[in-house]
């Protein structure tokens, strides 16, 4: 591509075009005006105007989650940029590739406490893989090229490029670089992977368990994981981001384990003699009390990020690398080990796991209940969707009910805020996911508290007539906190009851969306049908559920993983 004279602002758009960006989520403001001016009439990039920058970041995340591509968001300086911070932090915790581009005050004003000035590169250092303040327009193409490369390569994550207004206005000869050279990025792994050692451990294990995290989705290694799991025959447990890494309808899959995992899933991990962790990071929400975690288990830990190895649980055999290339090598090594020394007899172990599963199923009893249970609501929605929807969630009880009861069988079908636990994630993520996968059914499972944190962006969804369906599991509480208050704070419900306000049906209508409500079991199936049949814009469904229903089982904070509390 020959050099072409243009402004920095136009160059930003040309860079995004060269990166294949389809959608940008953002809001204009003073310090990013030149970029928005260049955007006016710029054909190859669609901009989605949101109503709050946090939504821009989460929508970009939703898009990235749903497609595997890099999400992009724009914001202006100062409060525009700081409003992105929650979304950037969320993307950092969940390894979501995100490029945030912010305008800043002119270079001459930086450091003077100018109007709408914020040190956004300083602020986002701990929550980005890297960030850049552009000080010379001639460096802009290289920086944006590097930004996309860093965001998507290795363990993905967010990056931020801050562009002062004078740099956006400056003219230069634009040329997009064709290659990237970053000496300090992704140093080569120095040791050969210890595949034979890992295979020996697997061959010698009679109580193995496979633990899948979000890294499987990131690597796109579902087929490789399936082949590996089929060979070993071990039970499979997942994190919330591991949902869809392995079909949850498969008999080997025990679903999510951890704080709200099924009793049988947690027992399996606790009693195992070998944990094979693939693309996971032993978060405290899955391990429970670390010193009592799986006391007899050796650990094979495969991850692309060497800093995750032995961070919390010491790996007996660490395997650093991309799951998609490394896991088939392990599968082959195990096949050889089985061939040479025979398969271990894991039948008694599988019987034991089956026994736990039969004795302690995840269950709820709607019969005899006056009100709809949240679990029932999710079950009915799932049945009506035939399990095919892309699900986004907020954060709270509804999220954990969805994680427990929604059977996810394909990758990138369950989109949630895991590491950061960001309330308000559901609607923006649904918006982003629907843009990313336009022909598919996108539904949100949200809570009444979570929904209200970003509900203003119903305007965005309505404007674009996105056929998303947001089911609000409404218990008029900040339910997860209320649950902890009931269980661990002596029923002192400090600031958790929410007023029956706003009327979500009227709110939906005010935004030009369809609003529906189900209060009883009789109403529920019909309302869900009606919601799913409406494709001319968003639908908000207010499902009134039993207010005191709690997520069980639960491992209290700081307790061992097998020390679970059950329901009433």
């Amino acid at each position, binding site marked *: 591509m020959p050099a072409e004279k243009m402004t920095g602002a136009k160059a930003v758009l040309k860079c995004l075009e060269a990166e294949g960006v389809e959608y940008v989520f953002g809001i204009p403001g003073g310090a990013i005006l030149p970029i928005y001016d260049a955007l006016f009439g710029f054909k190859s990039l669609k901009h989605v105007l949101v109503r709050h920058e946090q939504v821009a970041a989460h929508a970009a995340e939703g898009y990235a989650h749903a497609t595997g591509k890099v999400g992009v968001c724009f914001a202006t300086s100062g409060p525009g940029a700081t409003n992105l911070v929650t979304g950037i932090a969320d993307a950092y915790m969940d390894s979501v590739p995100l490029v945030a581009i912010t305008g800043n005050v002119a270079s001459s004003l930086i450091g003077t406490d100018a109007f709408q000035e914020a040190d956004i*590169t*300083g602020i986002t*250092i*701990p929550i980005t*893989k*890297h960030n850049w*303040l552009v000080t010379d327009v001639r460096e802009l193409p290289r920086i944006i090229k590097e930004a996309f490369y*860093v965001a998507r390569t290795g363990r993905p994550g967010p990056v931020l490029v801050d562009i002062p207004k004078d740099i956006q206005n400056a003219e230069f000869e634009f040329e997009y670089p064709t290659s990237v050279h*970053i*000496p*300090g*990025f992704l*140093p*080569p792994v120095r040791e050969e992977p210890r595949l034979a050692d890992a295979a020996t451990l697997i061959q010698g294990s009679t109580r193995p368990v496979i633990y899948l995290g979000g890294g499987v989705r990131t690597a796109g290694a579902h087929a490789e994981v399936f082949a590996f799991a089929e060979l070993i025959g071990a039970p499979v447990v997942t994190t919330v981001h591991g949902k869809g890494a392995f079909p949850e309808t498969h008999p080997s899959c025990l679903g999510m384990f951890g704080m709200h995992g099924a009793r049988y899933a947690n027992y399996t991990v606790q009693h195992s003699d070998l944990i094979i962790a693939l693309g996971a990071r032993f978060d405290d929400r899955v391990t429970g009390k670390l010193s009592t975690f799986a006391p007899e288990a050796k650990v094979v830990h495969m991850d692309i*990020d*060497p*800093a995750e*190895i*032995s*961070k919390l649980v*010491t790996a007996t055999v660490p395997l650093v690398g991309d799951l998609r290339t490394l896991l088939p090598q392990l599968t082959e090594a195990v096949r050889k080990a089985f061939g040479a020394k025979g398969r271990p007899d894991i039948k008694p172990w599988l019987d034991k796991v089956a026994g736990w599963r039969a004795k302690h199923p995840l269950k709820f009893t709607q019969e005899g209940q006056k009100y709809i249970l949240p679990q029932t609501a999710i079950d009915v929605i799932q049945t009506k969707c035939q399990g095919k929807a892309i699900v986004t969630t907020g954060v709270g009880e509804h999220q954990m009910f969805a994680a427990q009861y929604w059977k996810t069988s394909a990758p990138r079908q369950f989109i949630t805020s895991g590491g950061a636990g960001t309330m308000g994630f559901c609607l923006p993520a649904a918006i982003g996911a629907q843009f990313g996968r336009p022909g598919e059914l996108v539904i949100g499972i949200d809570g009444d508290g979570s929904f209200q944190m970003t509900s203003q962006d119903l305007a965005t969804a309505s404007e674009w007539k996105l056929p998303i369906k947001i089911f609000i599991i409404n218990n008029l509480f900040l339910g997860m906190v209320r649950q902890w208050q009931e269980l661990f704070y002596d029923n002192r419900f400090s600031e958790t009851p929410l007023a029956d306000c706003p009327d979500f049906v009227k709110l939906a209508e005010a935004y030009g969306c369809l609003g529906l409500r189900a209060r009883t079991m009789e109403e529920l199936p019909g309302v869900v049908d009606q919601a799913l049949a409406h494709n001319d814009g968003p639908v908000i469904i207010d499902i009134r559920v039993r207010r005191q229903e709690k997520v069980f089982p639960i491992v209290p904070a700081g307790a061992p993983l097998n020390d679970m509390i059950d329901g009433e």
Partner: protein
Amino acid sequence: MVSDMESTNGNGNNQGSTHTISLLVENKPGVLHRIASLFSRRGYNIASLTVGPTERPEYSRMTIVVRLSSKTVEQVVRQVQKLIPVVEVRELSPQDLIERELMLVKIRTPEKNHAELKALAETYEASIVDVSPESLIVEATGNAGKLDALEDRLRAYGIQEICRSGRIALERGFKTLAPPALK
């Protein structure tokens, strides 16, 4: 540049022995901030940190001394390695370590003690670099142990101010921390 930062978010990482970590970083604005931010966020206590130019103008070398368990130091190195401006990072092995520190000590003491102090300084291969009727400044270089010992001896004379540079270090022999392309 020296720092003696106390971790404010101590997470129990701060027990352990002294380790010297050497970093080769890009000589760009904000790099120190990125590294200090990582240490602070993860609760790694920095005992001393020095940074200065290297044989190549585009890189700086940092020497960071931490008091942590060996396991935590491995984590520190892996986390630091992820920072993009960090081209190389390694814990220097204690056996192969040549480490030096510079110390300036201002002592308020009558002139009659000056001769005695000069003799003491010579024992430690230190020198007197400033003399006034009421005070003098001693300059010393060496490893931390030697400087600690000298500091102890000088205390009796009335130390007014101490400035220590923090440690710099290289490994003995041919091993280097050069950027990969240069090896």
